[in-house]
């Protein structure tokens, strides 16, 4: 896939940055002429991934770094959310709907990330961290950005 544009943002692992991250990535994604529902889906997916990184990866420690990168390809948008936290021991279990380590959360984070992207991959190693990669096809509407780049 040919990369057309890329951005990378590092920020501290505080809950306030969940809103910042989703707005920043949605602004970047808007270069692709996404529909409003697509932008909403991107925002929810980024919120879930960043929220997981802070809450589960770093267990709410506020002095860690979350890295969010977004890359525009001819075919669509790739978003990566990475932490260097505790990692996930059983990715398969963590991705089950309604699985949650916190009774007040719904265990829907991965469900939303999966529903709102065309491909999702989770790479995680205990004590090393977790990287969630999501790819979303942004159909023909992205033609304007691609034509510019070509």
């Amino acid at each position, binding site marked *: 896939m040919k990369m057309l544009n890329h951005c990378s943002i590092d920020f501290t692992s505080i809950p306030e940055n969940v809103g910042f991250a989703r707005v920043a990535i949605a602004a970047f994604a808007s270069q692709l002429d996404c529909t409003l529902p697509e932008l909403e889906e991107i925002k929810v997916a980024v*919120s879930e991934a960043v929220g997981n990184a802070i809450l589960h990866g770093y267990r709410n420690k506020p002095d860690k770094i979350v890295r969010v990168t977004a890359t525009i390809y001819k075919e669509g948008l790739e978003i990566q959310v990475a932490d260097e936290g505790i990692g996930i021991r059983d990715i398969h279990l963590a991705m089950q709907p309604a699985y949650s380590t916190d009774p007040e959360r719904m265990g829907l984070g991965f469900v939303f990330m999966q529903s709102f992207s065309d491909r999702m991959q989770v790479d995680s190693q205990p004590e090393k961290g977790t990287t969630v990669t999501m790819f979303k096809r942004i159909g023909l509407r992205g033609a304007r950005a691609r034509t510019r780049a070509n």
Partner: protein
Amino acid sequence: MENITNAEEAGTVMQVDIEQKQDTLLVRLGGEMDFGVADKLRKALDNELVEKRAKNLVINLSRVTFIDSSGLGVILGRYKRLVNSGGKVILVGAQPQVHRILELSGLVQIMEEYPDETVALAKIV
């Protein structure tokens, strides 16, 4: 009207307006219901429920512009708590993008939902 900010230095991201109607709390929320405000919102609602001895909760979501699973968790947590003690939680007026998330989560399948506050309050008495 109470404002819930997600950090001492950060701007206001969620507005909370609470009114008591007999044994029901009518809560009008505005802004973004995400991980950044979930804890404070949860505590604010729980405090009011205890203080006002409310049995039911009507949540007006018409000014909520964004919700993620943390925001849904706040609603679900209050639902479990009130339903266990014989009360009701009713949702009102979610915008389309918020409603879609409520649908995907299954919350609207288990909770009552009405287009406006008057109808919702009438369903409680």
